[in-house]
């Protein structure tokens, strides 16, 4: 019901074109952009809040888009109606991946737990069959 409420048209008024992202800071390079619109829209992406040189990344009548595989940086988004000049609010998403040190620390922790579990089972199974 929550999802339905978010995508329900908020009246015909053009200024009700709303854009939102599911996160402000994406630490894994992926996020979802959602907007409310009854008619086809154009989704634009830019490096600056002024939208100096925007890039069109989607044109159509879906109500959302999943972005992924983004490198570190700050990105600005807005949607506009493709048949009018109604514009949505601007949404800023910061992509900041975890540091590699942190990633490898978790990797090492995981590897330790896994190897310990493996040793426990292999040695246990050997002892079990020889008895």
């Amino acid at each position, binding site marked *: *019901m*929550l*999802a*339905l409420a978010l*995508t329900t048209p908020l009246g015909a008024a053009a200024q009700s074109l709303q854009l939102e992202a599911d996160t402000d800071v994406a*630490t*894994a*390079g*992926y996020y*979802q952009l*959602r907007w409310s619109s009854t008619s086809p829209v154009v989704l634009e992406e830019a490096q600056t809040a002024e939208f100096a040189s925007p890039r069109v990344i*989607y044109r*159509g*009548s*879906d*109500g*959302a*888009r*999943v972005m*992924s*595989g*983004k*490198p570190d940086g700050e990105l600005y988004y807005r949607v506009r109606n493709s048949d009018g000049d109604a514009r949505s609010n601007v949404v800023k998403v910061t992509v900041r*991946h*975890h*540091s*590699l040190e*942190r*990633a*490898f620390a*978790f*990797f090492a*922790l*995981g*590897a*330790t*737990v*896994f190897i*310990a*579990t*493996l040793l*426990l*089972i*292999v*040695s*246990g*199974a050997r*002892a*079990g069959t020889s008895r």
Partner: protein
Amino acid sequence: MDVVNSAILDPMTGWVILAAFSALWIALGWYWGRHSQALDDYVLAGRRVGLALGTATAMATWVTSNTTMAAPQIALQMGIWGMLGYSLGAVGLFLFAPLAARIRRLMPTGYTSGDFIRLRYGHFAWRVFLVISLFYSLGWLVSMGMAGGILIHALTGIPYHYGMTVILGICVGYTLLGGFRAVIGTDFIQALLILSGVVVIAFLAIQHIGFDDIHRSIATERPELLNLLMPASIMFLFNNLLFGVGEIFHSNVWWSRAFSFREGVGFKAYTLAGLLWAPIPIVAGFIALAVPALSLNVPAADMVGPMVAAEILGTAGAVLVLIMVFSALSSSIDSLLAATSILVVEDIYRRHLRPNATSAQMRTASARIIVGLGILTWLLCAPRITTLAELLYFTGAFVASTIWPIAAGLFWRRANTLGAIAGMLLGSAAGLYSYFAIGFYVAALVGAAVSMSCVLIACWLQPAAYDWADLQEHHPQESGGTP
């Protein structure tokens, strides 16, 4: 999420396919279950399951909606390591192989994983374990019921509640009629359908677009997906592995299979199932990487698999995906219904409420609980609250904290109650904390690490000297229930 605006098939085609497969599963359930009157026959298929059916049921059950939908989702979000990390879920099956053999040997008349925890660690640890296990089972059931409704809706336009009701109703129906035999028999057919479907879709994706185009488009539009040093996906690797190990080690779905396999089959069946399962998430995940090459808009990450398949194959692809998804969902829902029902019957009904229940009464209770679980799942699926992966990933912290209490408890006499309880409680808490503090991709890992430390410290401080013979227990089946 109603952000996808057009279904690929028309509802009529959807209903025809659903009806045909439903009729098939129900008929097979009735056929295979018509002689399963005794308790062991009904809930454990007579404890004589062979290698072929054993392998197929383990593999097919592990292919859930997660493999066919979340693997593409993870590939789209986490890229190449997400996809390979997903296939490390097979490690759970490999590691369970020696456990299955040992479980069968130590507890030839056991019924559930709860039996083991109770006999090994006593009542308090057992109750903690039951809470974790039932929470997980229900989480899994609900995530699959919801997946069924959402997918059927996206593919055919059949309303969410109808699709969800059909898939739950059918699984309850044939599991009820045929018991564990129906589960295992249909799993075999479902395994063949899933494998063929994945292969056809991936093969056609390569033929349509080609590796070079797929690779080039991702490299320009979503470059981090191909990055072998993407931090989150490096963290995800062992997390996913340990999550899978935790799911398999504790869940009665896998224990009841270990009890039901013929002597000597368990080890081979689980190893082989792991080998057969490992490449599936790679193949299924790969099709999500075709998104940039197809210039496809993906509104919701969990829809990417079906959307790509339909884009490449059109109507035929959508039909194929529908059959595949229906198979993947049923092969897991039926297993969960059967295994959770015997867990509830043995560990709650008999051990808490009716200690003198005969095996005939347990047989009846088991059937009623299958229906009850179906209704409960339906009620929880009806409001359609959260996204799929979130719901199941939430349980990662809990299940991973059972790995060490179970593995050490099966192999080490010195493993003790204190370590098991502390491991499950502190591991779950730490895992949950990291879920919110860092991300879903570390919850299981942290849970498993904390739990392992608890078990090891407790073993060192206060080693127990457990007598394995205590695991052998008298059961109603032997003491003159239904022959």
